[in-house]
């Protein structure tokens, strides 16, 4: 089965090995886009979060077949011509990472919030960060990075 979709702005085509092929496996194995990580396989940890048609999705539970025609964004597609996405810069500024394995998930989750709501409340930040596990940071600095992203956007006049 052939699916065609937009991946980080570029056209992508994949022959699915089987109908239950998952988006995370298509990205990581078929397309060798390994920026998206695999954490638990049951949608619990959020490590594999990508953005499909504007919404955050656990790619480990997303049937790739349903992405036919979709617009898929992953961590690899955030920076533009070498300029980091505001959210990526915010994570660096706030030292909001340690081992880094969950960071693609956290960054994509944060992007999905901040692009819709550039000035989130602390409660909205907490709820969003809550959906992705991190075993290293204790989340304090990750939530700081959300606030930093909002501040950077404001400074750049984008919010």
């Amino acid at each position, binding site marked *: 089965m052939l699916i065609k979709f937009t991946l980080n702005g570029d056209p992508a085509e994949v022959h699915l090995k089987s109908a239950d092929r998952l988006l995370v496996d298509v990205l990581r194995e078929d397309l060798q886009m390994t920026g998206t990580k695999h954490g638990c396989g049951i949608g*619990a940890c959020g490590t594999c979060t990508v953005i499909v048609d504007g919404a955050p999705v656990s790619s480990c539970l997303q049937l790739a077949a349903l992405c036919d025609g979709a617009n898929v964004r992953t961590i690899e597609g955030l920076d533009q011509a070498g300029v980091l996405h505001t959210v990526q810069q915010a994570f660096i500024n706030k030292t909001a*990472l340690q081992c*880094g*394995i969950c960071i693609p998930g956290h960054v994509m989750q944060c992007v999905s919030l901040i692009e819709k709501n550039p000035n989130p409340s602390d409660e909205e930040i907490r709820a969003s960060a809550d959906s992705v*596990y991190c075993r290293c940071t204790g*989340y304090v600095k990750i939530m700081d990075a959300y606030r930093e992203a909002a501040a950077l956007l404001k400074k750049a006049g984008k919010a």
Partner: protein
Amino acid sequence: MSKQILKDPKFESGLLVVGKDVPRADALPKVTGAAQYVADMHLPGMLHAAVLRSPHANAKILSIDTSAARTMPGVKAVITGEDTAKRKWGAFRPDLYPLAIGRVRYVGDEVAAVAATDPETARAAIDKIVVQYEPLPAVFSLDEAMAPGAPLVHDDAAGNIAHEFAFERGDVDAGFKASDVVVEGTWDSVRQWHSSLETIGCVAQWNSNRVTMWCNTQTPFLARGRYSVALGVPEAQVRVIQTEVGGGFGGKSGDDNCSVIAAILARKSGRAVKLIHTREEEFLASHPRMPMRYWVRLGFSKAGKVLAKEIRMWADNGAYTGKSQAILGAATVRHDALYKYPNARAKSTLLYTNLVPTGAFRGFGNPSADWAVEQAWDLAAEKLGIDVVDLLRMNAVVEGDVSPHNHKITSGELRQCIDKAADLIQWKEKRKHKKDGHGLGMGCSIHVNGRRSFGDWDGSSAIVRINEDGRATIITGEGEIGQGTYTVLKQIAAEELGLPYEDVDITRPDTDVHPHSLGALASRVTYVAGNAVKRAAAEANKQLMAAASEQFKKPVDELTIINGQIGPKNGAESEYKPVSAVVRANIYKRGGEAIVGVGNWDNPSEFPDHSRFGNESGAYNFAAQAVEVDVDRGTGQVHLKEISAVVDCGTVIHPAAAQGQVEGAVVQGIGLAMIEYFDWHQGTPTDPQYIDYPLPSADFIPKMHIGFADSYEPSGPFGAKGLGEIGLDAIPAAIANAIADAVGVRIHTLPITAEKIHRALHPEMYADEQKTPAQPPKGGVWSRLVTGKPSGTRPFKPELLQPKSLDEAVKLYAEGDTAIVSGGMSHAIRRERTGYPQAKRLMVVSRIPDLLAITNKNNGLQIGSAVNQQTLIERPELRERWTVLAESLDAAGHTRVRGMTTVGGSVGPLIGGFDMPVALVALNARVVTAAVEGRKTYALTEAFDKRFAKDEMLIAVEIDALPARSGSAFHKFLPRGVMETPTANAAAVVTLDASGKCIAARLAVGAVSWKPLIADLSALFGKSFDEAAIRAAVKPLREFAQPMANVRGSAMYKRNMAVEIGARTLIRAWQRAAQQK
């Protein structure tokens, strides 16, 4: 007062890089997805591996038949113990084979492995391996392991004793005799899994007789040594390269068989092989924290001076030893250097059990020791009538103290830590306003900075080059596992070299390239490797300045290096030359030389003897932590309000990274204390994944105050010590102390659960409890394990159905063997992963317009079954008009989860504990279904009673408008505070008349039966608000609930919670109704 006076005179004018929050060295690749973890590796022709594990806790292997697996297309190698060197290996007590030889000793023990062209084929192949076992009696607890005549886990370990040691320092009996107050108690701790979000993995490839292993190990050189033993080849034939490490915490320190199996498969297949633990395997077969039973007795003078300490400890080794005997030592002696103990006696025993082997985990035994001893100190404070803060402070070690085991405190600001932690949480102020249910607790801890464990050396060796491009390169094999090693070592080198931080690079460990290193363990890297790098940088700097001296024709002491520029002190800018020019000129000349500094540094510590006497580390770090809680007496639930954590780690090299270490450690401590546990049945975790075993998530963490003591360690690089582990150790004890302060309940066994507290507070509510023997769990991962089909792979390729119309969908569904892909908890793929049957056909209904509609109908709503929960919650009128339903969607998780979860997915499976159906039952909702013979509309409660017919598809739910003066509420009771199936959930709708009397009320309680239970509330009709009457009306739920005992609570706790949560929800709905005009 600052202690910076001890600073190296060279840096008198202040530090330029150390102490600054520079951008982390590894930040850019980690925020762009470019960082290469082992699972991201791909080599040409690479195969994928899977492992067959034992379903028995103890059994003889009678035979293994691999023929069906070997002949599967795509399978390139199948191995068993026969393909190994049959050599036992292990860090201290070699007792583990790479693959079982004749015997398995725990559920998860490696039996056979497969390499195939893709991961699916490899997993499918292990299901085809037939193993005949003869099950043997097994020991599942410390008590069973030490019972007379207990079955032996290893035939050469009599009494199941893997290791034992004892000591007495001073005169303990005399100390107790002189004591006015003596306290004692026994505390038990539990297994905790590292749960790094990256699991253990390896890619291995042979080139003639040499194997290269790309491992996410914390300790590449120690791993190489052990793997060479396990493989039965000389160390010279093994090369270990560290990949990016996605979290370690002790769990990736080279005690696992994963890498060894990958290497054996690679040898047999002649191809590169990748083996990555699944999340489930990480639970079954990594080396979690070692549980201990810890009896401690402390003696004090009236004034509060500690006079004697005695402990007796038994630790659960699991089936194989790994590092456990060293952990036993740490947990026995370390704490004796925290307070001024004059006399100490201990005996500690490491016992084999038929459970998953235990090992190193952040804290290395100290969290279990602190769990006991720091609670004993709290008991003592109570008995002595002294505030615990004052008692701990009075007895805290100070600089110059020497412990009974010769631990020398060269820098120790524990008193400062205690004072600051108390101040940050406003201890004294809050003490004055003590209320029932509110409590404060404190705990302290001490940790090493490296430990002489693996022979009489705990040093580090580093090379620092200054290159012809003006940049410097640090060459060290210590490695980065996320804790910030690269950043901190770069800062130290840059400071010493006089180069900008950005101009220093650092290399990834490769045993072929780097000097011998011990790696990330025992909080040693900043202290030990930092010193080695500092020395190497100083040596390189010396060579550079000598070269500059020659080139500038000035003595070295008249030159200076600032920010990568060299020139005369106080010289004009134009006189300065870049470092690159100096280096290049030093190379490109007759007899020229590159600038290469080598630095070696050995921890100034002693190799402890068998009784653990000896100063195991050159320096010690300290922490004090204070916790504030509210305890809910009605449920036993603990609300963590604030935590303060103050650490003495000497000079703080990178403040933000240091805070991050402490914040992360505190949260892991919270996890150990209250969140991370699952159920076991006959030695098997019943659900080894992130459902029953959750991690702390962002919403659960309290307000944290992190601080650092003003401290300087003379032997540390720029005065620094380590801090990786210390932040975790005392957290569980501090939480328990706060709970005891709040409600007088002293918890002795981890984890701290709401149920344990509730039982202690309300024993009368458990008086009629009938204990039934534990039943094997139904379904789930457990059943896969015991039925010998562990992989969970689908033995066939499913067909994907994507009907365009409802009629087409109904027709296809009626044909049978079709699972509807509906997202969320009941997502077809997720259900299969967790052990439910696999359907031949997957039907996607999310593009059928009829099922995506939300329509107003007689002022009510009809909601299509394919509507996702996020779309529904965004309906503006929902929260105002059907609060109970909106709140049930809030409870279902987060935006991402709700976006992937549909109404049909939540309601269709008719599961009594899901949130949305409970709310819908309270709203008297109807279901609309379709089958070939037509559509039907009937009550959701009827659907629960009768279940859907095989060909009947849920297509919508319908709710009516609520009458005037109605209020509703939903409550999900998740004592662990993380998203999963609740202990109980409840939904209530109340309608009042103009005078505030109840006209109608409906309460549904979920998760305590196979369907939501509806309370008979007729006694409340016509009545005004009366909490006692409401509670009386709800109380019968306790009797007709039929809860299953599981990890969320015993049956009796759930019965009690059905009443408590039901009553609270009903009260809330009533109050909301009363607010309506």
